């Protein structure tokens, strides 16, 4: 008995040692050095967590001290609450989550100071200038839903939609394409940041194209015979009874010398609306003009206007990709009125013309309080994520004035969304590396001022150093997605004949979902010959 018990105990001990060994080597009981030499500059820290406005409910901002030293001490203090002192034998500073959360909570609306100390090889300590951040009074929605994907071109491998608990580092799978035959999964859209109301689209793979509708927490695969076979960018009407979708004949092409290899063009596009209760799809003339390409719908929070972008269609042959005029395609920002009571639509009206801006306007997103409209502008085209020139702009919907935001970088900014309280935006940006997008969070003050962006914090502060995936379509939601994983995959795999070919207008593409459609071809086309 004793011999065998000892064996079991040994096994358990070995596991415990392994587990402890895997934990980062930080000592949060360390003290602040008594004798220090003051250094009159800010310490190098990575990620750049200085001068930020941070959510009071965000996970600890672990970071790396980019200064030489053999030991490191960081003190985090605010006006209220117990300061945090973290000692570390390595430059990685791992902040204990509970105490961090208490400190943030105690200092809502106040300042948070980070004192960084390093011990040199001679045993002497240096103290750098204090790094100061502000804790916002308003919390950010606790969950972020995004897609993780490697930089893909013609074919794709693993693609997953994940949700991240922003108050911790917990990331869990919403759905992964390997669960439905390696199709593409994209375009998740929520109604008013509510995870219980979501639309999701998949394309290709063994399950074919599927539109999944989650309404009040109950999921179903939309029958493409009675609804639509292919959805692109979607927007829920605030009443939760209608979804407007862009139906696009999207094509990808490549550049031989431009820094970003990939480019995308909508050869044709239109907007349709899906009446959820009636399970029908329709469009109307203002949303599907023959001579224009409509896309990126976005409902105003009052439900009385649908904002969208549209561009003049400069070609007649939709098979030549790209058309000669691809660089001349610039989208205008428009809106159309809608009377929920009567179901009547008005006429499109110009909100901001590309002629005026000289740039192409895409991805309009209105803050839930209805005050601000956040959008992208880039040199041309409909797909800002592949345009280095894409920047974020904000329009005050009361005055109609717009401005380029200070959070922009030299690289691409796109895929932005608002928190439910209108005080936070998240967006993806390729800053720093030019190729792989990361998620950034910025505070929006009631007056519309946008604070410095912070990168989505990770438990391992070196996480992004070797992470070769890119984040896109980050959407803030108020809780976890109720249907996910195998349950969601099962819905996607629900067999429904996708024979629907919904005629929109004579000028618009049909909506039949075929492998050739979409920015990327089916995974079955792996290893295609690069043309030219």
């Amino acid at each position, binding site marked *: 008995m004793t011999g065998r018990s000892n064996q079991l105990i040994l096994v358990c001990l070995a596991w415990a040692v392994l587990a402890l060994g895997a934990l980062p080597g930080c000592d949060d009981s360390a003290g602040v050095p008594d004798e220090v030499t003051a250094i009159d500059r800010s310490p190098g820290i990575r990620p750049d967590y200085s001068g930020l406005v941070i959510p009071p409910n965000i996970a600890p901002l672990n970071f790396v001290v980019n200064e030489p030293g053999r030991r490191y001490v960081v003190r985090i203090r605010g006006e209220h609450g117990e300061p945090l002192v973290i000692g570390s034998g390595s430059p990685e500073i791992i902040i204990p989550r509970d105490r961090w959360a208490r400190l943030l909570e105690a200092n809502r609306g106040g300042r948070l100071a980070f004192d960084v100390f390093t011990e040199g090889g001679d045993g002497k300590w240096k103290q750098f200038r204090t790094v100061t951040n502000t804790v916002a009074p308003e919390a950010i929605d606790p969950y972020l839903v995004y897609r993780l994907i490697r930089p893909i071109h013609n074919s794709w491998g693993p693609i997953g939609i994940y949700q991240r608990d922003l108050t911790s580092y917990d990331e869990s799978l919403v759905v992964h394409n390997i669960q439905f035959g390696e199709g593409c999964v994209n375009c998740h859209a929520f109604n008013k940041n509510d995870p219980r109301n979501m639309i999701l689209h998949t394309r290709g793979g063994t399950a074919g194209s599927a539109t999944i509708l989650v309404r009040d927490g109950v999921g179903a695969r939309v029958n493409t015979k009675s609804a639509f076979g292919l959805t692109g960018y979607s927007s829920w009407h605030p009443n939760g009874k209608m979804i407007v979708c862009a139906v696009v004949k999207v094509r990808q092409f*490549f550049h031989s010398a431009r820094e970003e290899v990939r480019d995308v063009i909508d050869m044709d596009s239109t907007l349709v609306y899906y009446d959820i209760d009636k399970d029908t799809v329709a469009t109307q003339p203002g949303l599907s003009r023959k001579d224009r390409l409509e896309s990126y719908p976005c409902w105003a929070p009052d439900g009385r206007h649908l904002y969208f972008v549209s561009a003049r269609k400069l070609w007649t042959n939709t098979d030549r990709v790209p058309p000669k005029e691809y660089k001349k395609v610039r989208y205008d920002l428009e809106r159309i009125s809608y009377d929920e009571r009567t179901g009547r639509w008005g006429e499109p009206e110009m909100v901001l013309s590309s002629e005026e801006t000289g740039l192409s306007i895409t991805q309009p997103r209105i803050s839930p309080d209805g005050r601000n409209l956040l959008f992208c502008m880039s040199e041309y085209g409909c797909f800002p994520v592949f345009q280095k020139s894409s920047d974020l702009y904000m329009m005050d919907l009361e005055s109609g004035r717009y401005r380029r935001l200070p959070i922009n970088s030299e690289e691409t900014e796109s895929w932005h969304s608002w928190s439910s309280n209108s005080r936070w935006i998240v967006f993806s940006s390729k800053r720093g590396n030019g190729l792989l997008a990361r998620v950034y969070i910025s505070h929006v003050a009631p007056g519309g001022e946008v604070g410095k962006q912070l990168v989505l914090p990770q438990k391992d502060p070196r996480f992004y150093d070797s992470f070769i995936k890119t984040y896109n379509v980050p959407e803030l939601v108020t809780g976890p997605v109720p249907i996910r994983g195998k349950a969601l995959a099962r819905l996607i795999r629900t067999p429904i004949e996708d024979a629907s070919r919904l005629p929109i207008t004579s000028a618009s593409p049909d909506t039949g979902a075929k492998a050739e459609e979409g920015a990327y071809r089916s995974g079955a086309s792996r290893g295609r010959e690069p043309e030219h």
Partner: protein
Amino acid sequence: MSSNEQKPPRRNVAVFFYPLVFCLLLCLIFVYVWLRIDPSLVYHQTRLLPSLISVTDKAPADFLTYPGGPIDYVANALSERYFDSLLGARIIALLMAAVSLATLAAITPLGLRRSYIVAFGPALLLVFLFGQYNDMTTLALRLVGVCLAAGVYMRIPTRRLLVRTAIFLVMTPLVYMMVGEAYFLFALICGLFEVLNRRWLPAAVGFVLAVLVPCFGSMYLLDETINWLGMDPPWPAQLLPMFYHPWTHFELFIEGEYVTTTATALGLAAFFVLVAASGLSCQLAGRSQPAARKQAAGAVLPPRPVEGWTSYALQVVCLLAVGLLVFSLFSEVRKTRLQIDYYAENKMWPELLAAARQDTGGYDACINYYVNQALYHTGQLSQAMFSYPQTIEGVSLIFYLQDKGDPCPLGRPYFEMGRVNEAERIACETIESGGERPMPIRLLADINIVKKRPEAARIYLRKLRKYRKYRAQADGLLARLDEDPLLSSDPEVRRIRSVIFKRDFTIGGRKPLVADRWKVLLRANRLNRQAFEYLMAHYLLSRQVMDFVANLHRLDDFDYDGIPRHYEEAILVYHVMSKKRLDLGGRKIRPETFRRFAGFARSVREIKAATGDRRAQLFSTLARQYGDTFYYYFYFGPGGVAL
């Protein structure tokens, strides 16, 4: 006991026989793995496949969170050393020793002491599978875990059913978390053992849990990740231990260019046959020993009487037979093909050309492409490309890619020639179609350096350094990037920047001529020597002699010493075809080229005049004498003009 007392010398033989065989076998395995299999090729093959890739994304703690994780961690740590052939062979030999000893620990309580030699069976099977260039480290470690755990269980010194069942239940989560799906085998062995001892309750529990634990484990513990290709796992798949590992994508059946699926399938089948045979022999042993079972203290069966010399001889013969079978099933062709891929990745061009002269089991487009790459880098593409078998797409890979071949081989040459954006696209496609692999990751790092995106390059290099073999080169490059972020002082980087496209154009739906691949590069920089040689090689391979001749003037842009041999031969063909003399701008065709061509023409005339066997003989002589020339390829090569 009494029989042992009567025959003490045989007992002494037993004491020395098995350790001797064990040591000899280990030495043989070590030598065989080191010199014949070459663990660096196992490493290379494994990194061509996506099975281990997700491992690089995981922290050590992650391996404790899923069944089989701890062993995956150790297996990955071990197989990361295989790039060093000698060290790899040592590790594999020691692994096989561990497997044999663990098997011994498991079979002894089953009453198989008479057949200790059976303990070497799993190790030999694993060596066979290593010889198929599958990394069997995980499987080997799982077997060790299973056998040791089963050995511990079977030695529990109590016969009380409830206690034994309780101990089994306590061991279940530990073993399952340690060995993952291989728990199936552990529960099966324990169940068999209990059947032999007529303890039906723990036996039933063992058999039931053998099926239920891996099944429910993969359903619930792995729900968040990936579950048997995302589908609800079919029951038969659950019954096959190690058939597919959802978390690491480990799969024994690998559809790949370098792996014979049949061989691995046979290996797996043999494994199950072995398990079944072990079970059967246990049964038989059990039936023949009712008295012994009764005498068993606790659960351990008593030793069988020691057999005579015949038995030892028979065991040695069996072992030798299995060893010979393993040896003979090894495929030199597969090894050669892997070597070619390995040399291409490591830019070992002379070695690649030497390997290409061996039997490659069919000279496909990909090997052809690598050979031409090696020829270019050794300055022989225009001089000796027809010394190797050539196919029409030997420099273009058109059909190979259309048939969904791995685009990876195309990436590096495109990059070197200046088609950097397409190289980027190809590298990304390679990763998407075959998983994250060191080769495209390194290529992406180089591409981003050339494109002046040092931080993106760093990200790929930090990813690359997670592979032990590539750590030093990644660290070296990272250090250089710290000093010179654009690596402007690097001559190769400067060269590639000089040949990349200066003016952007789009690449979309239309498919231009293949030759345009290189012509546009020459328009961007007429001094792009690689583009020139590939263009000319393409014209030669596609027999476009007129186009070839039209581009001969480009020779003036480079410092060729005279006219390269194959170009001379093509010019002579042009003379014959057009009946015109070409102005070579002061260059001259060497007399020996003229002489050889004249000899070729004479031989062809002789062949035309000959009939029957004589004709075949002459044709054979012609191929021997002139098979390395362009004109032979032109007239008689694949798709050439028949006589």
